């Protein structure tokens, strides 16, 4: 059995949970008094909770220091480059936060204020539809995979309405792992299609997989190799001639924003990842948002509520429809993320959006041109916003992708996506995004080149990396095989219970 402390050093630097610091009376701040007039009369007695909240009793200074210390253990997009492939970790402009924060006090029951919110949401929908070349949309998806599920349920409902039974969804092997999962939850069987040595799906390959049981093809364009699906028009034709639908995962929309439109490629249904393409914080930084856009023939099935104009031209929510798939989210989706996306679109304008995809592609190709001299590039096909390298050259010296990812942490840089996509052995998937300045791209490339030289000259040093980060090299295998969940639950506001 390993000694965890010896391996990780983690207990030496761990920041205790606030609840373990909790002690009655530590918080000497007065709580604000309740509103003088409070509409409790409208609430049923048994619905009112009179218990004190189970939150830690800690002083202000302890609380501030706790979160400040935690923030110093963290690495975020505000620290430096975050080249996590397929995640689009771009800088999130603060103006969007500011705009979204101004509506945070509006209550959904405030009908007058909500009229304006609904108008903003309609404008946002129209913007998405214009950007993507689609006809109608829903904004309620909670994030990417939820958008996929919503889209597949829409397609299922459309088929059912036509009286067709189709059980298969085709998915290229360069897809995100969420794609088959979403299809399975929607009740479809998935069939994986090989993309072949050029790294994109051939219409001739697709032909072999098409039959009358195919409900849809789920494609990501550009795919997870960063390669544009250049046969997309033929693919769409094949799919449509078979009576199937073309679904596009919009996770990589950052590569084509303002330059080409999924709707023009023949896509029937797609989801967007606002937290990727439209710059709201994600990855521990806040909720996502996954709007779903459809062509006209799929619009009757969009989830509820629908935003519709009333006789006076004001917008209201429509809560019932015999054709809709029903509700997919409480309230109005992740409203704050929607507002940030709207602020982002308006602040950039059409030319700015085009600039996003151009610079994202330029940045990725700068890094690719430099790094493909030191690392194996498995596909020669031109790439857009991201590219995939492998550890082939370094593995000859016993240094793997994982070793190099850990070494990047030692250099103070967040590693790229590793071992994905699955079609590439020892994949290193790099997506710098458009928001990185040239100096930061150069710094990253310098570090990667240094790592490549180290792999040749001193491969033994990798095994101990990182050694200067808050936690050193973690034994991931041990951790995965021996799950220990530690938490502290406050049983009442007077007593702290420690559980393990």
């Amino acid at each position, binding site marked *: 059995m390993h000694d965890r402390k010896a391996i990780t050093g983690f207990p030496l630097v761990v920041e205790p949970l606030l609840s373990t610091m909790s002690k009655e009376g530590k918080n000497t701040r007065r709580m604000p008094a309740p509103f003088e007039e409070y509409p409790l009369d409208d609430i049923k007695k048994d619905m009112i909770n009179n218990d004190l909240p189970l939150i830690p009793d800690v002083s202000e200074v302890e609380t501030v220091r706790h979160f400040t210390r935690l923030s110093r253990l963290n690495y975020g997009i505000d620290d430096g480059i975050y080249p996590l492939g397929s995640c689009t970790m771009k800088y999130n402009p603060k103006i969007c936060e500011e705009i979204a924060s101004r509506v945070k006090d509006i209550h959904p029951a405030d009908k007058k204020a909500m009229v304006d919110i609904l108008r903003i949401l309609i404008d946002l929908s129209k913007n998405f539809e214009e950007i993507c070349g689609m006809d109608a949309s829903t904004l309620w998806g909670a994030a990417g995979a939820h958008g996929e599920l919503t889209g597949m349920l829409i397609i299922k409902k459309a088929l059912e309405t036509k009286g067709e039974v189709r059980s298969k969804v085709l998915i290229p092997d360069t897809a995100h792992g969420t794609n088959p999962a979403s299809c399975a939850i929607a009740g479809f069987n998935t069939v994986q299609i090989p993309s072949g040595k050029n790294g994109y799906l051939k219409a001739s390959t697709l032909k072999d997989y098409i039959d009358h049981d195919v409900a849809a093809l789920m494609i990501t364009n550009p795919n997870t190799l960063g390669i544009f699906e250049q046969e997309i028009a033929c693919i769409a034709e094949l799919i449509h001639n078979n009576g199937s639908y073309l679904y596009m995962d919009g996770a990589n929309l950052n590569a084509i924003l303002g330059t080409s439109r999924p709707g023009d490629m023949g896509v029937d249904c797609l989801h967007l990842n606002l937290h990727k393409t439209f710059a709201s914080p994600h990855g521990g930084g806040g909720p996502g948002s996954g709007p779903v856009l459809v062509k006209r023939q799929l619009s009757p099935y969009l989830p509820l509520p629908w935003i519709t104009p009333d006789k006076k031209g004001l917008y209201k929510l429509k809560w019932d429809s015999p054709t809709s798939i029903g509700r997919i989210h409480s309230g109005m989706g992740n409203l704050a993320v929607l507002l940030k996306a709207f602020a982002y679109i308006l602040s950039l304008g059409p030319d700015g959006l085009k600039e996003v995809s151009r610079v994202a592609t330029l940045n990725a190709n700068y890094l690719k041109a430099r790094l493909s001299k030191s690392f194996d590039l498995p596909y020669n096909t031109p790439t857009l916003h991201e590219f995939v390298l492998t550890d082939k050259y370094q593995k000859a010296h016993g240094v793997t992708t994982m070793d190099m990812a850990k070494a990047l942490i030692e250099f103070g840089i967040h590693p790229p996506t590793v071992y994905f996509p699955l079609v590439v*052995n020892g994949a290193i998937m790099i997506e710098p995004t458009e928001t990185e300045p040239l100096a930061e791209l150069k710094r990253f490339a310098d570090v990667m080149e240094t790592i490549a030289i180290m792999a040749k000259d001193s491969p033994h040093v990798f095994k101990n990396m990182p050694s200067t980060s808050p936690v050193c090299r973690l034994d991931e295998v041990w951790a*995965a*095989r021996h799950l220990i969940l530690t938490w502290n639950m406050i049983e009442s506001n007077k007593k702290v219970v420690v559980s393990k």
Partner: protein
Amino acid sequence: MNFPANLKYTKNHEWARVNGNKVTVGITDYAQSELGDIVYVEFNDKGTDVKQDGIFGTVESVKAVSELYAPVTGTIVEVNNALEDTPELINTDCYGNAWMIVIEMKDTSELDNLMDSKKYEDYVSSEAK
């Protein structure tokens, strides 16, 4: 890499040991080495039916989660539950103690769809390119 001559192999890197109408199934040396350290496995229950090339479980390593595919059609008559607590056996003893399930085969002619060790070795070296 070790590919015993007395076993049959699938394109998805499972091996099959045939004994009458019973087939013992596991994953190959190539599969375990590509997956890396295996941390979790899960199989369909004893008594469930599986189809040739149908999924009978999942295997999870630090790198990825992969599906396990049945080499033949039939009923699962035995499951190696010990692997739940000791998935690392798959890395150390993939053809021995890390067998996964035993299938009672419906149609022995399905065995013709599987590869022998020589063919599988060629298949692996072409895939590894």
